[in-house]
Structure formats: C-alpha cells, structure tokens
C-alpha cells in the first residue's frame, strides 16, 4: 500500500511545493528588488507582506476574465495552459534528493530539453491568437529568441553529459560526488545560464514582452487568471532553470551531511533564484539585434568550443 | 511702389507712406505709441526709432523716427538716393528700450488690477523692446482721477503722455471737452472738471489709449481678461449702419463689445451706443423660458414641450396664421416666419411710414445712377449735403465719417505744399479750423452744426423744397421750386455751387424726418450730380439694423397686418422679435392683439406685445444666434453666435421651424443649419442670391479644423462649471457655423468674415489689427467682409422725381410734433443697458421760444399734448432753433414709444 501510494504522494507534494514556490516568488522578487533599490517592497499585508501573494491571488482570480472579441478564442485560451504544463512536466525528471523524484528517466536531460522547447508554443500561440500587432510582434520575437537560444542550451549541456556519461539526471548528480561540474564546465554553466534566462524570457532578455515598446508583448490582451498563468509559468521557469543549474553543475542534493540532501538542493536552488532576481535588478534590456547577435556570435561558438575542449580532454584522459 | 532695404533685404512698398507704416505693413514688428493708422503721425513718443543709412557704404547711419520719415527718400532734405534702414540695429534697439524705460518711470505698479492688462499696447511694447526692470529709484508722479460718466473709467497715473486720446477725441472725433492740462512731466489728460464726456465716440478712447488710462466702465462691472472672453464676429444692431463688432462673453454674459475692424465700414471705431448698448443681452427683462398664458390670465413659465403641445393644438387645426416680421431680426428669422405663414401672409413688421420710406430709399438706389458709398468712402467725400437727418443721433458712426470728410478739401492744399497726408501735426497746422463745404438742413439743431458751412432749419416740407431747389440749380432739367424765399434760394445756389465744384460730392438723407419728399429731393440732388462722368453719391439712413433687408423681403407693413386681422382674414398672429407698440398707434395695436384669437410672440425681451401674447417663445439675441443683416449701405453682413445660454433660448428660425412641425406642415423645409435656410432665402429672392456667399459655410475648415471662439489662453475650462458638477460637460456643438465653442481649432488668421479676435504673437492689444490688414489702416486680407446687394444700374437715366411739396403752413392752435432722435434712448434695445439708460434724456416736449411764449410756459413747466388720442403730460424744453409752428418729441423713450410722428397736436399748458 505504502509502496504504491508513495510515488503519488511525492508527485503531489512536488507539484504543491513547486506551484507554491512560483507564487511565493512573486513576493520574493518584489521584496528583493526593493531591497536592492533601498526600498521596502510589499510589507503591509501580513507578516513581512507575505500575505501579499494571497491578496494578489484573490485579486487575479476575481478579476474580469476577458477574451477580446477579435481573438482566436480556443487558441487564446489554450496558450497560457501550455507554458505551465510544459514547465511542470520538466520537474518530473529532477532528482530532488536520493529519495525524492517522480520519474527516473535515462534520457531525463533530453526530456527536459524537449519540454522547454514546448514553452515557445505557448508564447507564439498567445501572440498569434491575440490578433493584435503588439502581441504578434512579441510572439515573433519570442519564437526567434527561444529557438536561437535553445540550440546552444542543448549544446552547453553536452559537456556535462560527456563527463557523466549519461543523460540520466540521477547519474549526473552521482558523478559529481568528486567534483561539482561547475568547475570543469564553467563555460557550459555560463552558456546554460544565459540560455536559461532567454528561454524563460526574464529580464534582461524579456524582449517578447518589452513593455516600453510592445505594451506587454504577447500577453497584452490577457487578463485575470489567464494572465496569471503566464506569470506563474514564468516563475516556474525560473525555479526550473535554477533547479537544473543545481542538478547539473552544483551537485544537486550533494553536500556535507549535517543537513539532509533535500535541504541542500533547496538551498542551492534558492541561491540561483535570487541570482536571477539580482540580474533583473541590475541589468538593462539589450536591443533585439544585440540579443540575437549575442546568441549566435558569442554564445554558440562558446558552447561549441566548450564541447570540443571537453571532448578533447575526456578523450585525452581516456 | 518703391524699393526699400530693411536690414539689407529689399522690399516693395507703396511710396506715399512713412517708414513705420511700411515696416508694419510688411508684417515686421516695430514698437510705437503716438502713431495710430487712423490718426497719422506726430512723432511725439520717439518709440519707433530706426536707423537710416545714406547708402550701402554708410555704416554709421543715423537714428530717425520711422513714423516721421517718408518711404520716398527723394523727398527728404537733403534727398537720399535710396531708402536703406535697419530695424534690428543695436543702437536703435537700445534707443527704443531707453524710451520705454523713461515712459515707465512714472507708470504705476497696477497691471494686476488694471483692466487694460492682457490687451495693453504698453505691455506689448515693453516686452517687445526688452525693458524689464525699473532702475529709476525716485518717486513716481501721481494724478487724481476724474469722473467721466457711465462709460469711461479714468486712471491718470497710468498715462504715458502719448497724446492719442486728445488727438482722437478732439481732432478726429470733434469733441472739445477732453484736453491736456498742466505741463512737462505732469501733463494731465482730462476734462476741465469732473463730468460726463460729451462725445458720442468716447468709447473709442478705450481702444485708442495704449494703456489703462481710459477703460470701459461697463466692462469693469463684470471684468474678465481679454483672453477669457468667448468671442465671435458680430454686427451692431443699434442702428442701420452695420458696424462690425466683437462681443465678448464670459460665464453666460456679454461682458464687452470691441470694434471689429472692417476697412469698408466702421474701420477702427464704434459709437458709444454700439459699444455700451450690449446690456440688454444680460438684462433681467430677458425671456428665458417659454411662457404660456394660464387660466388665471397670467403668463407662466413652461417647458418647450408643453408649449409645443399647446400650440400644436390650435395651429394644426387650420388656424389662419399671419406672421409679422421685424427689422431687428435677421433675414433668416424673417424668412423662416415667411415660410411658416406663406409669402402672402407675411408682414414686414415696420411701421407704415418706415416701410414706405425704406422702400423709397431702396428704389432710389436701385433705379437711379447715384451709388451709396461705404462709410470709408464717406470719409473721402469732399462736399457733403445733409438733408433732414440728425446724423449724430440716428447714425452716429456716419457722423464720425462726415467729420473726416469735411477735412478733405482743405487737406488738398497739403499735397501742393508736399506735406504727406500722414504727417498729422503738419497737416493740422496747415488746415487749422478750415472746413470743406458741408451743409446741414434739418428740422432741429444737430451736433454737427458747428463744423457746417451753413445750416438751415425748417420743417420737412421746406427741407424738401430746398433739396429740390439745389437739384434744379445743378441741373435745370430737374423740377423747379416755385415761391422760394430769397434767402433759401440763395442757400440752394451756394450749396449747388459747392457740390458742383467738388470731386466727390455726397448727399446724406434718411427716414428720420418721416418725409418721402425729403428723400426724393436728396435723390434729385444726387442724380443731378451724376452728370458729366462724375459719381454723385447718396446715403440714406434707415431706422434699424435690418430695415433694408426686411423691406426687400416684404412690402406690407404692420398697418396692413392690423387691417387683415380686423377684416377677419386671420385669427392667429405670430410676432417675431417685434414690439408692435413701437410700430403703430397703441389703440390699433390693442385692436390687433385683442381681435386675434391667438397671438404667439417670439422675442428675447419682455415688452408690451409679449405681455399680451398667449404664448411667448424665448429667442436668442444677436449674441445667441447667427444670421444676416442688411445695412443701410445695402451691405449684407453675417453675425455669429457668441455663446450658448443656459435657458431655453434658441434662434428664432429654430422656433419657427418647430412651429411648422406643430402646425403639421408636411411640406416644411428640413433646415438643419443656417446654410440650408440661407440657401432657401437665396432661392426665394433673386436679390439675396449672394447671401450664402457672404461668409464661408458651416462646413468650412482650415486644415481640417474649426475656428475657435476662445483664445488659446482661455482659462478655467475644468473649473467654471465644477460647482455644478465636477465632471465637465462636452462643449456645445455648432452646426451653423465654422466656429467651435471651445479653444480647440485653427489659431491662425481665418478669412476676414470669420475673424473672432484680433491677436497676433506679441500683439495682445487691438493694435494687432495691423497683422490682419494688407496695408496698415487699409483692407483686411482676403477683402473686407460683407457684400453689397444694392448697386445702381449702369445706364440708369431715370426721370427726376417730381411732386415738390408745398411750403409748410403753421396751423392755428396746433403744432406739428416732429420726431427728435437721441443716440442714447431712441433705440429700443440699447436703452436696456444701464449705462446707456443713465445717459438717455427724460421725456420732454421741445418748443420753440415763440410757441412757448404764446403758451406762456417756461423751460421745465409741464405741458399736455394729445397724440393718437392719448394725452401726455411732459415738461417743456425751449429749443430756439426749432422751426416755427413745430414742436419736438423724443422718439422711442420708454413711455413715449408707439406714437406716429410727425403728427399735429394741440399743446396745452
């Protein structure tokens, strides 16, 4: 009985924790941004303003959920769901600790890459279905940006795969017992992180929704919880990328034994989430052509070079 | 034309001007004070300093006053080969700044409480020269002010001694009770003692004075800045001349009237009746809601819908309607009434006399060779013969024009001495008190007598005989007058001689004597002058602002309407903007109003006719409606709605259109705006064919924009009505004109007929008019607005008019009561303005000393006369020059209106 119910509990538990993390991130981001800008941020609702999240949820759920008459209705409704589903699916392959995982796929990493490419559909469909020039422009930008950065996102991880000799994430973590991969794969880490920001279209790479040029880009026409879904999707994406950085480059759950492995995992992920927010607080948005040039002319060669060097060294060492 | 170089750029300018005129005509900015386009140059203020150079090599130049330097440098002593000046020269600029600084030494710290602020020439010029700080540390001289009557406020501290006021008041306007006193820095412009300014043109001091010494006292009662006024082009309706005005509105009240420059009509000036007579628009006697007679017999306020239903109940039941129009309503309103009742049931609303006389004037002008001059042309007539018209009181602005024409002949000498006409001081020095030929023949003394060559006092019949005699003397073919006394025959000869010798003779007559013979005589004189290629001109003054227009529409008068009702041809009378008690004897109007089953009155003021009506509909005044008036010159001019009032008032023609609906007239035209109705008017009357073209249509736009009635600086848009409701209402829409009731729209210069304010960057005072003229003091860009409907036929050679009346015979025991007109008082509407009412006389009876002696009355004693069967007791006033056997009674004063004059009456003590 316990045996059969255990995966279910874990699945539901992870789903619960992950979704709540995304929600809490809204509060966290606002507090951290405020901190870095010498302000307070939301601090009036509940202790430390924690209930701000609740207030925001109530607000967003009770807002008018409006579908523009000129929109392509089925697609318009479907689009926000796609991003949340795609991101949540990726969490399935993450080994949170030696005992907590949902599924132990031996092609876990490929599954993650596949799922993260799904995210682009959400954005493109939303932009298309809105039937609005700003939304469409946002959607097109998103498509180009995500497709471009996906290429070397995959490539940047191949070094890790080569060193671990496996696509299975548990095995990748296990192989890091001697040395976390961020040391040999520092370039892989940099490329993956940049690609991760671009994939989640977080600042400074939020060109698909650049509010100073495109109103709100692909989600200009969205309101209520549909808009909330995009929001949650974005924060889930942040959590996901942070979790992957932890898993792939920082030894996942590994750590001194005075803390249980899951805590190590959470701590490491938390640090990267904060780093994502710090990036938002400090960096300006590049121009679109700069973004593309940066991807194709800097990141792609860097990822390829990293791959060749890693391959060469592994070959040499045998 | 001459080429002049201004700051090394060549310009083509007319060479009979001075440099200031040339520079301003070119649209350049040059400060000035004492110069005024209508007054000429005296070179007193030293403000228009520029630098003049001998030739291209001359780099030093010398400072000259632009207003005193002719464009034509060959006439200078010593002559120069070319005219080369600099306006932007540093030294000249510094000079001008210093002049302003001196002028401002004594100028008080008053601008915030000064009525001139915001339309002040001194402010504009100070800003233009760049002076901004008073360095002079000593004390300012001060003056005490004078009481100058109900029109003009005096604040002498502000004076900069430019002398424009006395130059206008005395030299141009012919007044003599305003002058300069004291000396040097202490000169004082005022009267010898406190008192009402006597001139009928004192209001122009407000616009002539470059600063706030003379300001509009009626405006001060409800003062608002010029930029806050909502303005639209309008036409004065207080006499027949059709002067162009700009009424200004704020908070639903007309606040002031400014002159609207029209190079053909009034130019820069208005008379005081036109300027200060606007009070009736704000008067407590306005009808603001529809009134309906209740069962108790009183009039009570109602709603437009309720009144509409009530009217529909009898109008749609086959009522036999007649419509009585009005010479003070627009052509459009009269036409709407005519459309409602049918052409054969429309009456022109004039008294029988007026209708007959105005018709006579129109006929003479249409059929004869003599043309009627514009007011500007009157100023250049060099011999004037006034027959039977007291111009100062019946057509005041014409009086001012005639005052200029008497200078024409003497000024010709200036040309011989090579003194340019703009050199006002020199010309006046040369001319002194010399006057050109100017003859006045009227029943009673006029204020122009003192500048007339000769005057003649007689009854209308004798005036006509003089006129016929003059015509006969000019052209023996004209009918002769028998039994003329020697002195009159001699006078006729000398008048004929003077007229013959002049280049532009002018005869002025009109309806105020109520004598057709006088007008015929005037026509004969003018026609006799049209011999040998010379253009004799004749001007007929008619009673009201639209008398000519409405007489062109219908010939039947109020008396005919009374007969129609008495003959039971009609049971419903619709009276449009007309107090019938001013048109016919009280008893017969009583009969009309009592006999008719239903009387519907449309008007904006309560008067005896509206009090007797069954239903009264609130009409908009000239300021609340659009329309067209035809002036005595025959000029059709459009006036535009200035503001939308809060009440139920609307244009009379809109009410009449609603009445058409109430009467169930299915074939009623679907007029949607003023253009539709003017189009109908043009179709119905060939003579009004040009009416739709006198101003741009309602759809007219400049670069896709309407023309704003408010200045771009209009203030308080979000606050004026905030006490009622904090959410601002939408501004009213205007479907009738190219104007908007807001500050949104095209801010540049519109076509001349649509100029709603004179303003140009840096020119906030009325001096901004310069920027709208082709040449300063000349015509407006695009031609002066309005269009003349009556021109003489080219090859007209009508027979001279005959029937010379017999000489006047005094009757025993009876006196012929002559109408006496008063600029303040005789007009129905202007007297409702409190300031004008203050200047209007109390009712009196003028008697000549012989009559007074035989009645044994002294000045001020009460006498009784009986007119139209009604006895009146009035104080007597001895008037030495009244012809024997006549007496004079003021026309139109409240309590005296509604008697037909002239009439014989027994006068008792």
């Amino acid at each position, binding site marked *: 009985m316990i045996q059969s119910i255990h995966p279910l509990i874990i699945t539901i538990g992870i789903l619960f924790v992950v979704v709540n993390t995304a929600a809490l991130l809204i509060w966290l981001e606002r507090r951290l941004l405020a901190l870095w800008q010498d302000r307070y941020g939301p601090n009036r609702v509940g202790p430390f303003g924690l209930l701000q999240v609740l207030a925001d949820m109530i607000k967003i759920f009770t807002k008018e959920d409006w579908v523009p008459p000129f929109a392509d209705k089925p697609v318009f409704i479907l689009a926000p769901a796609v991003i949340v589903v795609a991101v949540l699916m990726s969490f399935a392959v993450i080994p949170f600790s030696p005992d907590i995982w949902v599924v132990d796929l031996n092609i876990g990493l490929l599954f993650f890459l596949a799922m993260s490419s799904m995210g682009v559909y959400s954005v493109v469909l939303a932009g298309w279905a809105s039937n609005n020039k700003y939304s469409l422009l946002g959607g097109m930008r998103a498509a180009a940006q995500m497709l471009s950065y996906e290429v070397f996102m995959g490539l940047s991880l191949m070094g890790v795969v080569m060193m671990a000799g496996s696509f299975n994430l548990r095995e990748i973590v296990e192989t890091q017992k001697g040395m976390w991969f961020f040391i040999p794969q520092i370039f892989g880490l940099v490329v993956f992180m940049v690609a991760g920001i671009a994939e989640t279209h977080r600042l400074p790479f939020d060109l698909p929704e650049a509010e100073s040029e495109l109103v709100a880009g692909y989600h200009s026409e969205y309101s209520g919880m549909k808009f909330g879904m995009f929001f949650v999707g974005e924060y889930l994406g942040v959590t996901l990328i942070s979790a992957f950085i932890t898993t792939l480059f920082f030894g996942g759950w590994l750590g001194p034994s005075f803390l249980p492995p899951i805590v190590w995992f959470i701590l490491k992920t938390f640090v990267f989430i904060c780093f994502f927010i710090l990036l938002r607080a400090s960096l300006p948005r590049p121009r679109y052509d700069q973004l593309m040039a940066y991807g194709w002319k800097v990141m792609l060669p860097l990822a390829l070079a990293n791959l060749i060097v890693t391959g060469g060294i592994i070959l040499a060492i045998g | 034309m001459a080429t002049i170089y201004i700051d090394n750029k060549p310009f083509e300018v007319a060479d009979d001007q001075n440099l200031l005129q040339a520079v301003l005509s070119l649209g350049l900015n040059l400060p000035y004070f004492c110069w005024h386009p209508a007054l000429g140059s005296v070179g007193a203020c030293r403000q228009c300093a520029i630098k003049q150079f001998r030739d291209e090599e001359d780099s030093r130049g010398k400072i000259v006053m632009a207003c005193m330097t002719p464009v034509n440098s060959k006439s200078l002593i010593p002559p120069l080969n070319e005219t080369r000046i600099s306006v932007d020269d540093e030294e000249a600029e510094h000079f001008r700044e210093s002049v302003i600084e001196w002028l401002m030494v004594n100028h*008080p710290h008053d601008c915030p409480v000064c009525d001139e602020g915001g339309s002040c020439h001194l402010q504009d010029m100070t800003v233009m020269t760049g002076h901004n700080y008073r360095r002079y540390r000593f004390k300012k001289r001060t003056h005490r002010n004078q009481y100058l009557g109900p029109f003009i406020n005096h604040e002498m501290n502000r004076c900069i001694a430019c002398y424009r006021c006395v130059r206008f008041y005395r030299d141009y306007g012919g007044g003599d009770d305003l002058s300069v006193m004291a000396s040097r820095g202490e000169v004082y412009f005022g009267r010898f003692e406190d008192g009402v300014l006597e001139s009928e043109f004192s209001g122009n001091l407000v616009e002539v004075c470059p600063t706030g010494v003379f300001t509009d006292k009626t405006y001060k009662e409800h003062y*608002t800045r010029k930029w806050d006024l909502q303005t639209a082009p309008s036409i004065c309706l207080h006499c027949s001349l059709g002067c162009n005005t700009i009424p200004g509105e704020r908070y639903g009240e007309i606040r002031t009237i400014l002159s609207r420059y029209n190079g053909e009509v009034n130019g820069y000036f208005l008379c005081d009746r036109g300027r200060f007579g606007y009070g009736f628009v704000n008067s407590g006697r306005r009808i603001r809601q529809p009134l309906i007679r209740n069962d108790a017999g009183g009039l009570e306020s109602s709603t437009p819908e309720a009144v509409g239903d009530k009217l529909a109940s009898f109008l749609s039941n086959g009522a036999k309607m007649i419509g009585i129009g009005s010479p003070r309503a627009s052509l459009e309103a009269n036409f709407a009434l005519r459309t409602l009742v049918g052409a054969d049931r429309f009456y022109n609303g004039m008294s029988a006399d007026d209708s007959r006389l105005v018709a006579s004037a129109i006929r003479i002008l249409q059929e004869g060779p003599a043309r009627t001059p514009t007011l500007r042309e009157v100023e250049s007539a060099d011999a004037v013969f006034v027959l039977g018209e007291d111009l100062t009181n019946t057509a005041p602005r014409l009086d001012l024009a005639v005052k200029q024409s008497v200078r024409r002949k003497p000024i010709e000498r200036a040309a011989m001495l090579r003194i340019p006409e703009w050199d006002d001081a020199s010309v006046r020095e040369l001319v002194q008190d010399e006057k050109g030929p100017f003859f006045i023949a009227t029943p009673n003394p006029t204020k122009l007598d003192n500048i007339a060559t000769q005057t003649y006092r007689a009854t209308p019949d004798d005036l006509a005989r003089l006129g016929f005699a003059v015509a006969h003397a000019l052209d023996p073919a004209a009918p002769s007058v028998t039994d003329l006394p020697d002195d009159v025959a001699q006078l006729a000869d000398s008048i004929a001689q003077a007229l013959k010798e002049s280049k532009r003779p002018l005869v002025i007559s009109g309806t105020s004597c109520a004598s057709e013979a006088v007008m015929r005589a005037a026509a004969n004189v003018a026609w006799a002058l049209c011999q040998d290629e010379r253009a004799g001109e004749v001007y007929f003054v008619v009673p009201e602002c639209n008398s000519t227009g409405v007489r062109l529409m219908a010939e039947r008068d109020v008396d005919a309407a009374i007969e129609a009702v008495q003959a039971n041809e009609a049971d419903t009378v619709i009276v449009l903007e007309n107090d019938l008690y001013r048109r016919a004897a009280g008893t017969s109007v009583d009969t009309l109003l009592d006999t008719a089953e239903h009387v519907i009155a449309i008007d904006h003021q309560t008067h005896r006719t509206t009090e007797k009506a069954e239903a009264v509909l609130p009409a908009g005044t000239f300021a609340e409606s659009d329309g067209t008036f035809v002036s005595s010159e025959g000029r059709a001019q459009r006036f535009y709605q200035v503001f939308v009032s809060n009440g139920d008032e609307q244009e009379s023609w809109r009410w009449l259109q609603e009445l058409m609906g109430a009467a169930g007239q299915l074939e009623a035209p679907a007029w949607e705006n003023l253009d539709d109705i003017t189009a109908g008017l043009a179709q119905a009357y060939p003579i009004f064919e040009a009416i739709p073209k006198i101003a741009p249509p309602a759809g007219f736009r400049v670069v896709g924009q309407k023309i704003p009635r408010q200045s771009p600086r209009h203030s*308080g848009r979000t606050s004026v009505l905030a006490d009622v409701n904090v959410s601002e209402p939408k501004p009213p829409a205007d479907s009738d004109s190219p104007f908007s009731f807001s500050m949104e729209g095209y801010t540049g210069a519109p076509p001349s007929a649509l100029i709603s304010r004179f303003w140009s960057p840096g020119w906030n005072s009325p001096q901004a008019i310069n920027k709208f003229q082709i040449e300063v003091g000349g015509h407006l860009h695009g031609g002066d607005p309005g269009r003349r409907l009556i021109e003489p036929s080219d090859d007209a050679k009508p027979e001279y008019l005959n029937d010379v009346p017999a000489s006047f015979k005094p009757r025993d025991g009876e006196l012929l009561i002559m109408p006496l007109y008063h600029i303040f008082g005789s007009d129905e509407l202007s007297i409702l303005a409190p300031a004008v009412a203050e200047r209007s006389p109390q009712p009196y009876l003028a008697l000549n000393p012989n009559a007074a002696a035989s009645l044994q009355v002294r000045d001020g004693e009460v006498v009784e006369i009986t007119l139209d069967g009604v006895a009146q007791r009035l104080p007597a006033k001895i008037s030495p020059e009244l012809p024997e056997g006549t007496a004079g009674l003021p026309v139109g004063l409240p309590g005296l209106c509604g008697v037909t004059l002239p009439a014989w009456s027994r006068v008792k003590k």
Partner: protein
Amino acid sequence: MISLLRSIWLVFLHMFRKRVTIQYPDEKPNLPPRWRGRIVLTQDPDGEERCVACYLCAVACPVDCIALQATEDNHGRRYPDFFRINFSRCIFCGFCEDACPTYAIQLTPDFEMAEYNRQSLVYEKEDLLINGPGKYPDYNFYRFAGMSIGGKDKGEAENEDPPVDVHSLMP
C-alpha cells in the same frame, strides 16, 4: 562584460544600505515649506484679502482648474467675487503661485486631501482662504500699486509723490 558584472555587484551591495522609504502614514514625512501641496489664498499683513482677481493664476494653470470673477468694493479695491479650484484636476505644478503678482495664492505642505467623492474636491473661496500671510509675511500689493483704495489715497503708496495740482503752471 566586466561592466555587467560590476553593476550586478554594485546592485548587490545595496542590500546593506539604509532604506530611503518613509513609512507613511505610520511615519509622517518632514515636508519643506516650499512643498507644492494644497493651494491656499492668503491675507496681507493688514488682514485683508490679498487676491486682486487679476486672473493670472487662471491663465497660467495648465489644466485650467482655476475659475474666478473679479469685483470691486466701493473704494476701488479689487477682490474675487468667487474663486474656485477644482482639485480633482489640479496637478500641483505651482504655476499659479509663480504667476501671482500679490503672493495671494500659495501652495502649502499639505497633500492629505483625498476624498471619496470627487465633487468634494471642488474648493470655493471660503475653503481656500486662510487667516494669515503664508510664506511672505510682509508684502501688501496695494502699498505699491498706484490705485487708490479705501484707506490709501493717490500718492500715498510707496515711492509716490503727492498728486499733481493740474492748475499749477510752476515749472
């Protein structure tokens, strides 16, 4: 690249700075006297209304939220018959104060004027007048103006000679 890292680092260091937020309404801000808040109409040192109804504030107002009407007392002193500010439109730019030639209209350090009903934001003269001279304690416009008002005849203002006797011909 270095500059990016440097800015990330500098932003990170802000974590240890003092926060500038003032916790209004628990903590009241200390506003400078020239703060542009609620508009008042002041009185001159003699306790008379300073406003002379010159309309300059109204015309200076970029949102046209000031409306007034000038009137005069029996001695020629000008004052506003009514004076209305629609604070629901006011943007507190202070142009009216700049334009005022008599220091009558002044902006004060009070911004707590929120209302539930927009109509309550329309202030009439009685709501605007305060019992004092505001920031400029000494100025009295009529002591400098040339007009005579009750209690001050011609020639009695600052820096004025007594009125000219026009009958005198003395040089």
